[in-house]
């Protein structure tokens, strides 16, 4: 049989003269590759083709105008292969585990938990992103049980996320597997990625792979943007809500040279120019803002293992919050209204490229990105100006150590350059980080049921010295219905003390710091147990997980020790976060997806010498989401309810214990509930959606303390635990045209 294949290869040059394609089809079995006979080989879009011989080989006449072959065989994933030149093809088909599947328009699963990935990962697909219409990455987590989204203060409109109950800064944010939106972009970065540009989001909890750096502590959030070689030809979206927010998004993909060279152009514009003050405290409920963003990206794929992508994004953002009547032209002074103005200009660029060897067993990838960020702002009378220049490069070499790819080694080197210039209270802060690093990661995957991953990296930081980051992951599907995962790993990050906490400037107390950069350090341990069943013929998945993060060094924000300052100090005292979560996903009725989730947070840190609950953090969260689509998905209905637990409000005890002028409990906030709902109607080329956020119109009472005297000593807009915006009704339209 081998001889035959050999003969085929020798004969090949002659065969090609006869204008035909040939090759061998294999199946990917546990004991290596096996020739696969009887595989259907047809030119895509036609029924012309052949079947593979008993030794897996096939020969097929060329067909003018067709260059893709489709390989299909019962029990295996179909594969489409592009035919270029006249090289012999080697096609490996993967067994398809769900044999019974005769696809009858399946309901697109929105969020699902991966059982294959060794890291506990939730994938948020494009379908899920349709459930909540609004509007950028920060707002894409409304229907997600693991990520909490809240406002950081009541004036800037900055949204922050929490993963495992820990602030978003402890989650490594990535765009297409490259660390992004760090440093100065930490505060508003999530709002810089328009939702309609997103293809999917992956949220992974606990230690991440060492390939992506040392930064993830609580987890990792990766945003995948739309790809220029996707089938989308043109996408347009307009959106408006009753609070006067308007948005336009558009993108188009152009095939410059077939599917070899493609480019995508993206545009985003949004505007809020209506002044809303529903609680009549004299302050805008959310800032006025205007944003304009454009992006262009290119993709080159030679379909023979070589690929390169490059692109850039430009962003202009201007926001104006504070008292009604404040505007960005005024000079900050006590004679003018209190205002918070933030102007940002930013450019992002990336380049990545990869080559895969002919035999598919080795690959080399390079990933780089660059960002320049400039911001000018004032918070009341305090000015804060900053700029940042950042470069990131990562080189990864992947090598299968054996033919069946049971042992895989990923190794490489990375480099980070990050230059900061900041000015606050007329004090200049300058800092340049340079961090070269090396890493290696070993993966052991003897079968589909078991994966073991162990990685280690060493980084050489010009400010914080050398440090080692070990991480380990283990996944085992020990029975058809049960999968377990464990992980343990170290994480480090540079806390940019001022830029990450600028929202605290919306406060009468000035901030006080000793070091402008602090290296935070923590261990993270995780355990998850996933059960998958069929209940009444429909998938039922039950997930239980526990994560613990233990800090060795943490930047602690102390707003409760001094009535004169807010202290930002590094601390090696006890700080930890425990997060226990359960979630159940099922379809009780055909096409009705149900998600029930409940999480308990136990997050403590030492503030002023005392171990306390982390401030402004709910001690639990419950989430119920229903999604119903009519047959053939012409209508979609969504309903989400979130139950948020109560928590602690940080205050200087001595100062507040006798305050009688404030009603209610001043050291605690109570549990509250938020509801969202949306209806979408699909047509062939477009769809329209109507929804409501915060249906019950719940808002935090008194979000701005001392609102009547914003330049006085009692002013504070930073004790925010709940929504500051009431009910919002929105309407949007999407138009979508695909290539065929």
């Amino acid at each position, binding site marked *: 049989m081998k001889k035959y294949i050999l003969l085929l290869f020798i004969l090949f040059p002659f065969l090609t003269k006869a204008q035909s394609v040939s090759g061998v089809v294999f199946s990917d079995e546990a004991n290596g590759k096996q020739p696969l006979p009887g595989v*259907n080989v047809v030119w*895509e*879009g*036609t029924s012309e083709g052949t079947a593979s011989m008993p030794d897996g080989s096939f020969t097929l006449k060329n067909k003018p105008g067709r260059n893709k072959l489709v390989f*299909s065989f*019962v029990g295996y994933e179909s594969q489409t292969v592009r035919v270029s030149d006249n090289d012999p093809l080697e096609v490996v088909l993967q067994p398809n585990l769900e044999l019974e599947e005769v696809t009858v*328009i399946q309901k697109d699963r929105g969020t699902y938990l991966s059982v294959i990935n060794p890291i506990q990962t939730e994938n948020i697909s494009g379908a899920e992103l349709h459930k909540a219409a609004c509007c950028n990455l920060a707002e894409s987590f409304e229907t997600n049980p693991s990520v909490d989204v809240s406002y950081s203060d009541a004036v800037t409109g900055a949204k922050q996320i929490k993963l495992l109950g820990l602030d978003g800064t402890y989650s490594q944010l990535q765009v297409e597997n490259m660390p992004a939106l760090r440093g100065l972009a930490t505060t508003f970065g999530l709002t810089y990625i328009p939702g309609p540009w997103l293809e999917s989001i992956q949220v992974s909890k606990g230690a991440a792979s060492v390939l992506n750096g040392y930064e993830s502590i609580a987890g990792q959030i990766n945003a995948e943007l739309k790809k220029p070689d996707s089938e989308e030809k043109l996408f347009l979206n307009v959106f408006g809500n009753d609070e006067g927010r308007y948005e336009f998004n558009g993108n188009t993909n152009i095939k410059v040279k077939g599917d070899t060279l493609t480019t995508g152009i993206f545009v985003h514009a949004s505007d809020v120019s209506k002044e809303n003050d529903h609680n009549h405290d004299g302050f805008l409920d959310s800032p006025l803002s205007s944003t304009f963003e454009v992006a262009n990206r290119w993709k080159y794929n030679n379909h023979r293992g070589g690929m390169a992508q490059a692109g850039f994004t430009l962003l202009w953002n201007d926001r104006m919050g504070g008292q009604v009547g404040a505007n960005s032209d005024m000079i900050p002074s006590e004679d003018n209204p209190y205002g918070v103005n933030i102007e940002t200009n930013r450019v992002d660029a990336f380049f990545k490229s990869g080559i895969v060897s002919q035999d598919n067993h080795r690959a080399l990838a390079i990933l780089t990105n660059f960002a320049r960020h400039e911001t000018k702002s004032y918070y009341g009378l305090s000015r804060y100006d900053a700029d940042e220049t950042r470069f990131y490069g990562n080189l990864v070499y992947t090598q299968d150590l054996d033919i069946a790819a049971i042992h895989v080694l990923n190794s490489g080197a990375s480099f980070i350059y990050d230059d900061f210039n900041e000015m606050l209270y007329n004090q200049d802060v300058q800092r340049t980080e340079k961090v070269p690093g090396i890493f290696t990661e070993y993966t052991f995957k003897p079968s589909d049921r078991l994966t073991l991953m162990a990685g280690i990296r060493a980084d050489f930081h010009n400010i914080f010295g050398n440090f080692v980051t070990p991480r380990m992951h283990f996944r085992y599907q020990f029975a058809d219905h049960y999968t377990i995962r464990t992980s343990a790993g170290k994480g480090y990050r540079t806390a940019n003390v001022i830029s990450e906490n600028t929202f605290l400037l919306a406060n009468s107390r000035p901030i006080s710091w000793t070091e402008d950069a602090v290296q935070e350090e923590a261990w993270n341990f995780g355990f998850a147990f996933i059960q998958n069943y069929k209940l009444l013929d429909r998938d039922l998945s039950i997930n239980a997980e526990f994560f613990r993060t233990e800090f060795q060094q943490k930047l602690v924000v102390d707003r409760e020790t001094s009535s004169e300052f807010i202290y930002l100090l590094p601390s090696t005292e006890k700080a930890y976060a425990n997060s226990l979560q359960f979630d159940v996903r099922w379809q009780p009725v055909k096409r009705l997806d149900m998600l029930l989730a409940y999480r308990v947070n136990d997050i403590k840190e030492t503030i002023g010498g005392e171990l306390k609950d982390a401030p402004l953090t709910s001690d639990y969260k419950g989430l119920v989401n229903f999604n119903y689509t009519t047959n053939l*998905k*012409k209508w979609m209905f969504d309903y989400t309810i979130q139950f948020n637990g109560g928590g602690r409000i940080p205050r200087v005890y001595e100062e507040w214990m006798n305050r009688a002028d404030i009603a209610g409990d001043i050291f605690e906030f109570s549990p509250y509930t938020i509801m969202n709902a949306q209806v979408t109607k699909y047509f062939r080329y477009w769809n329209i959606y109507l929804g409501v956020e915060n249906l019950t119109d719940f808002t935090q009472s008194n979000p701005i303390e001392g609102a009547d005297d914003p330049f006085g000593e009692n002013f504070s807009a930073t004790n925010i635990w709940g929504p500051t915006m009431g009910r919002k009704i929105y309407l949007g339209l999407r138009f979508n045209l695909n290539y065929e």
Partner: protein
Amino acid sequence: MKKLILLFTMAMFIGFAGNETFAQKKENKVVCFKSNMDCADCEKTVTEYLKFEKGVKDLKIDHVSNTILVEYKDGKNSDEELAAAIEKKGYKADKITQKEYEEIVAKNKKEE
């Protein structure tokens, strides 16, 4: 009393089920085609296109057995127009009877 409730519920269910089949027979028409889609993407293209044709209520499209079943509201569309829609997307639409369709699908299932 419990029995009565049980009986009542059962009656309801039977009533509903009966209603549904009745409704289906009266209003909806079913047409089947043999096609040449061959690939999963082709199946998706046809599905996305056909589902927004007038009156279409249900679809069963499979690229492995190359079969298309369309259920649609009688009077809102016709077998010929649906066939034309499939052909417009570049695929064959040879009309077959529902019996033939079921035979092909059953045969395919067996092979698997």
